[in-house]
């Protein structure tokens, strides 16, 4: 696809590491919020309320 010369391996591994690490960060960030949203919804279904829930809807 691209002729990256004799150091192509170093270049592709660098970009691959970037994809893996940044992809992992994105999954961590999105899954983290989703998990907490589900946890919060579960607590609310069980009737638990926040102290400030009456001021903040």
């Amino acid at each position, binding site marked *: 696809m691209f002729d990256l*010369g004799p150091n*192509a391996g*170093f270049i592709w591994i660098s970009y691959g590491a970037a994809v893996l690490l940044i992809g992992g960060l994105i999954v961590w960030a999105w899954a983290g919020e989703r998990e907490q949203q589900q*946890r919060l919804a579960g607590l609310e279904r069980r009737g638990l309320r*926040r102290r400030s829930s009456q*001021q903040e809807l």
Partner: protein
Amino acid sequence: MSGLSEPQTVRAPAEDTMFGPALRGWLAFMVLAIGWSVSRYYVGVANLEANGNPGWDTWLWWVPEIMVVVGILGLFILVVSLEAGNHSRIANLANPTPFMRMSGEILPRLALVTALLIAAGLAMSFRAPPDDLQGQAARIMFIHVPAAWLSMACYTLTAISSAGYLIWRHPLADVSAKAAVPIGATFTLLALLTGSLWGKPMWGAYWVWDARLTSVLILFFLYLGLIALRQAIDDPGRAGRAAAILSLLGAVNIPIIKFSVNWWNTLHQPASVIRAGGPTIHPALLIPLLVMAFAFTLLFVALHMKAMRAEILRRRCEAMIAIHVRGGGEAANV
């Protein structure tokens, strides 16, 4: 949710209509600027290869890149001005509920623009001509340099947030500090890995104990220490204060990293972009580097916002459980 009589339920739709058109306009502006920047860059490189005159020696060439920068700054001005209009004090921005509402509206657009900018940066990175001395291996720079900048910027944000938490005891400052650390650690690891992979073909070694590399390795250990410290202390308040103190102590490492290449005789090259006298990199390589740097910066902002939202929700859950436990009931099952 309960509370039909609560006034805030009436106010929310009006705020949505204030943010909506402005953010849609911002999105259109950014798509235009990014698309124009990529197409102009391809034309410039083609001209460079054909007749040696790319045409980017006049300021007019840089209009699309200037538009991207103005767009990024504009987003923050937009948010602050609209939030300040909605609430009587800008300080309200630092409260969790306005933050959750604001970030919920901004994040989808910000994620889209970030993805576009990363795609544009990658397209430019692989179109850039090889460097005269380093050849194709210089393409690692487009990943390594933004990651290294962000590793320091992220720690600086952590230290500022920590100072905010220690001085004003503001919970959102602690949330910001905690959320930034894993992101900063990952960017630091990426900078170390790509630096090592760049060093082998250029220096003949994956690692040397020179001042720049060693100080960045210390930064990585500081990030790991901050994560470990929070996990080692059960009480969240004490953990937050201890992590804040450690992050402020570690902030001394940031100027050491930045100026290590000037203070000591290092194998790592000296500053070549942010330096007195202007950048020493050719525009053919500088433009993709700057686009990637802006893309990584926006990515960091989006990831930090998302991680802060998760932490705020986690604290809400913990607070609900704590209230329930104090009031008796079925806490053990929660």
